[in-house]
């Protein structure tokens, strides 16, 4: 991984269209500004990890989903206890 040392206000350019600037630094936090094209998604890494986990939990195999459909059918046929 490329590592760079920057001071507050200094920039990093990624490709031709993405600009990252260090806005402020405190003891354990860095505030960063990012300028990128409109079609670029900018996401916090830990949130993406949680979505990956949620997707893995939701994914269903061919065998699983036959049973799940049966359960869905059952649950929609009457009120839940």
């Amino acid at each position, binding site marked *: 991984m490329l590592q760079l040392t920057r001071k507050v206000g200094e920039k990093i350019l990624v490709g031709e269209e993405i600009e990252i600037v260090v806005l402020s630094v405190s003891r354990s936090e860095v505030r960063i500004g990012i300028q990128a*094209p*409109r*079609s*670029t*998604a*900018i*996401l916090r890494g830990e*949130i*993406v990890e*949680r*979505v*990956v*986990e*949620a*997707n*893995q*939990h*939701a*994914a*269903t*195999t*061919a065998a699983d*989903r036959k049973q*799940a*459909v049966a*359960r*869905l*059918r*059952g*649950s*929609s*046929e*009457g*009120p*839940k206890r």
Partner: protein
Amino acid sequence: MKPSQTTVLSETETATPLRLTMQRGPLGFDAYRHFVLENLDDAPPFKLLLSVDDADVAFFVVASPDMPFEYQPRIPAWAFAKLELPEGASLDVLVIVSIDETGGGTANLRAPILVNTNNGAALQVVLDETMPLRRALSASGRSGP
């Protein structure tokens, strides 16, 4: 989920499955880029988002207007751009649901699948943190973060 009192066979339920193409698959399933969206006639309003490449990769989804509670998320500008749509254009929002052993389930309101219905382009978007990753699929219930 609200029990349906009447069965209405709408046009979409009889249509051939919609084919979806993603530049990058759902998060954690990045390599799975081609899906079909099948109606589950046995269990409306659930649909199945099924990988074309691997029958063991599929997700149960519910279209946003069919959710048991109001769900009209604000779509970020980058998502419209990726789907080659003008900002604010209409698109389909599919919510991924996890079905539990009792037939109940939770909906991932944080990261729905967006679909450009004109060309079948789709992507999974990650919305802001006010949207829960797991909300119970009952009209009022809530569970998880």
